[in-house]
């Protein structure tokens, strides 16, 4: 159990409401608007809310006197939405892997709203499980669609803080396969890019330095995808979970004597091309009927992962931006962004 000095915070009510109304205020009698065509069918309540993956709310945090603070800490706000204000909950608590088991966090009503909230400062880079207890009854977060089972099979809601590099979706073999494909799509692990790796400053990399081991994955694109399809694009989780076994099967079929992750890049290039054309020989269309769609999705995800802000899990230390700067630049990206990632003295991320 991960524990740390407890740092509860009180946020201004407007700060919390700003992050609740758009997503949670609505006529709950309507059919779910956010089921992603039944991808959230098992979570009908979560499917009613807009972007339930935004909960708990993970904000950045600025620590005066600590230039690395913005990469080290997040402010996390747990929100419970009362179904009926006429019968409000008496006591709402959250238990989680970031707290001692006997010391839950107490949620308080935000002004006179439907929202009960509690805020705590947590380190970046970690995935946590949590559960609410409402008037004595334990319950998963009805808003957040992210659920997973603990080793004892118990169900938990979960979330992660920025710069998280712990896999939450993929198994090791899936990561290995995807790494080969993302490297094929976006070959930033070429000679040119390796030059940048040798120059990267560990201090500058800050919290994202741990992603460097994923250098072969097009600047951490796999780690980005791992988080993306557990939250914002949860509707693509099945695409990966269905296609990766098919890809593994096809590769083993083509070369029974080598682990897919060790196969030559030409095999991946050929399979990518075949899938992009929509008809890879041997593909089981009964399992997944549109391999070209999967490849389009993977291509977009790879590019997004490589070139989005490192807090999303890819682009370690702004590596891909550095690549752009030197290979296709000029691109003075550091001037715009927060320290320690960038060099702006005005902007805090």
């Amino acid at each position, binding site marked *: 159990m991960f524990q740390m000095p407890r740092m509860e915070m009180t*946020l*201004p009510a407007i*700060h919390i409401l*700003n992050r609740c*109304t*758009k997503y949670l*205020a*609505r*006529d709950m009698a*309507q059919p779910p*608007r956010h*089921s*992603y*065509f039944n991808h959230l069918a098992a979570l009908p309540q979560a499917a009613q809310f*807009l972007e339930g993956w935004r909960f708990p709310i993970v*904000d*950045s945090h*600025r620590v*005066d006197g600590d230039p690395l603070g913005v990469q080290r800490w997040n402010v996390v706000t747990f929100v419970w939405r009362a179904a009926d204000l006429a019968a409000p909950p008496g006591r709402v608590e959250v238990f989680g892997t970031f707290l001692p088991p006997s010391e839950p966090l107490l949620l308080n009503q935000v002004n*006179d*709203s*439907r*929202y009960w909230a509690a805020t705590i400062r947590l380190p970046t880079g970690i995935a946590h499980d949590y559960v609410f207890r409402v008037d004595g009854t334990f319950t998963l977060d009805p808003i957040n669609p992210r659920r997973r089972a603990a080793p004892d099979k118990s169900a938990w809601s979960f979330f992660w803080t920025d710069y998280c590099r712990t896999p939450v979706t993929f198994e090791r073999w899936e990561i290995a396969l995807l790494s080969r494909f993302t490297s*094929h*799509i*976006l*070959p930033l692990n*070429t000679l040119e890019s390796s030059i940048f790796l040798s120059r990267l400053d560990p201090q500058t990399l800050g919290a994202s330095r741990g992603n460097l081991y994923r250098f072969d994955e097009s600047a951490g694109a796999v780690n980005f995808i791992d988080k*993306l399809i557990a939250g*914002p*694009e949860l509707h*693509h989780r099945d695409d990966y979970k269905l296609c990766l076994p098919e890809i593994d099967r096809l590769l083993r079929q083509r070369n029974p004597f080598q682990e897919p992750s060790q196969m030559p890049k030409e095999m991946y*290039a050929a399979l*990518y*091309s075949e899938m*992009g054309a929509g008809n890879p020989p041997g593909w089981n269309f009964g399992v997944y009927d549109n391999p070209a769609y999967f490849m389009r999705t993977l*291509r*977009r995800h790879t*590019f*997004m992962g490589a*070139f*989005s*802000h490192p807090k*999303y899990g890819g682009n370690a230390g702004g590596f*891909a*931006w550095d690549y*752009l700067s030197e*290979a*296709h*630049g*000029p*691109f*003075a*990206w550091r*001037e*715009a*962004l927060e320290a320690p990632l960038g060099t702006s003295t005005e*902007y*805090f*991320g």
Partner: protein
Amino acid sequence: METFDAVIIGSGAGGAPIAAELARAGRTVLVLEKGPWFGTQEDGFNGLSDFKRDELFGYGFEKLINVPGVANQGQAYFPSHVEPDLNDEPHIYAPHSELNPIATIEGYTAQVIGGGTQLYGAVHLRFTAEDFRLASFNSGRNFPGNPADDPEVSIRDWPFDYEALEPFYEKTERLIGMNGTVQGQAKDFKGKNPYQIPLPPNPISDLARAGMQTLGMETYRTPLAVITEDHTPSGRKAGSPKTSYVNRYGDPLGLKSNTWVALLRPALRDAPNFLAIRCNCNVTHIEAEGAAITAVHYRDPSGEPKAVAGRVVIVACSAIESVRLLMLSAENDPANFGARIKYNASGSLLGRYFMTHCFGGAEVRIATGQRFDKSLSLDSDFATDFAARADFILQNNLWAGGAIYNNTSDQALPLSLARTHGSVDLDALWTAWAGDPGLVGSNIVNWMQADFGTRLSVSFMANQVPWFKNHIRLHGSTDKWGRKNALIVKDWHPHDRTLMDRFAALCEQILLAGVPSSTPGDVEEGSVKDQGVRIANHIIGGARMGAAEADSVLDPGCRAWQFDNLYVTDGACFPTAGGANPTNTIQANAFRIAELLKARL
């Protein structure tokens, strides 16, 4: 019921000037804003802004359209974090045939304190004198394709002229805070220079300027609502605004002059007892007794129904949503509100003459091998009014003109480069890039080498013909509160197409003249003429003001004719679209209305 002198619906360009002016004059004001209060670093919690320099804030993660009855059901879209969600509150678009309507993000501005001024590119042009008198300008003209010959086209002079609005332009520019140059503009600034000094242009923009000047076009630095010096009226300090996180991004530093940092925040500081702002509050309908608006009904941040009253009520929540709100209020009370606003009445102009701008331009990949860091830029550096002047309009057999300026920050960042690659509109982001199976491996590297920091575009923004057929009405689908959504029925008039062809050709000539070694084969020119859905977030008309009740929805003071205390002050009130981005004129007109209201209240 809680009562204020003024209740203002919307905190953007049409509402904030009135709120600030009335509060400073000692009138009690309540602003109801549907979106959140997202502040700058200065006013955010813990010294952090709610806006980030983060490409996934501009356009975010993929979602799927799930709106019954639309042709693009199941299609992907990529919303920003402060625009409405299409599944919760879509705009529905249909061409005149009304076949295959689609849910679209087009025509939506930001739902946040400051409204669309938070996300806009901040190009802040005045309209020309001719823009206010296009009926008079075109009177007696005879040329092929004259849109005035079309009985369904209704070109009207504004009920006031440029001279009347000029002092309010000057006030807007001074109070909002902007940079630019006067010399070269086709507008009379009365000897004053309201601008701060522009920052040095991005070097790529010099190619556009050279092209304009080679063609004999007088240029000026594009007026941008971004402060480059300390700005006393709003109490802001100068900073370093040149990043490509400008257009489509809220500014964490508050250097982009949105209505929150420029007007509302200073007014709150100066007149805290007179100005209240309630964010996360969604107005559902307006209630009237006879000619008097008696209540504004809204849902609070939890969704609980609430109501307030105002001696005057100002609707300024962007043209489409303002018209929608009037129509929803009419459906709630057809006998009184509906009758007075002439909802669904024969010949009613409510919702009619909806406009955006004719827009398009030309783009070139610079062939000389020169590369530029477009990320060190604001949205535009150089503009010309060459095509806004009367002689150009007359010589080209057009009914009206428009502005031309270069774009600097487009595709300056890697994700924007990819997601707008080959896309025809905001509803098709990523489509072309992700759908191109050839973009893989070394081809991606080659594509970045060819396109990153090498593309220069020049755009035009010109008047669109006011056409009766182009209109807003309610659609059968409903939002997350069960309220009918807005349907926009719009196509381009044949003369719009002619005008866009002429302007696009002009933009192409600019690039050919300015970019060394460029050939016609290098330059892509075009416009939105084949995309009726395109709105550019310049949402204009639908409740136009005019001198005669039979010919307008609002009187010259933007008051709804049959109501005593109901005003509409966003772009909905424009009789014509103007030959430039509309925000400056929306704000100037709002300051004009504020003067009228101060005299009334």
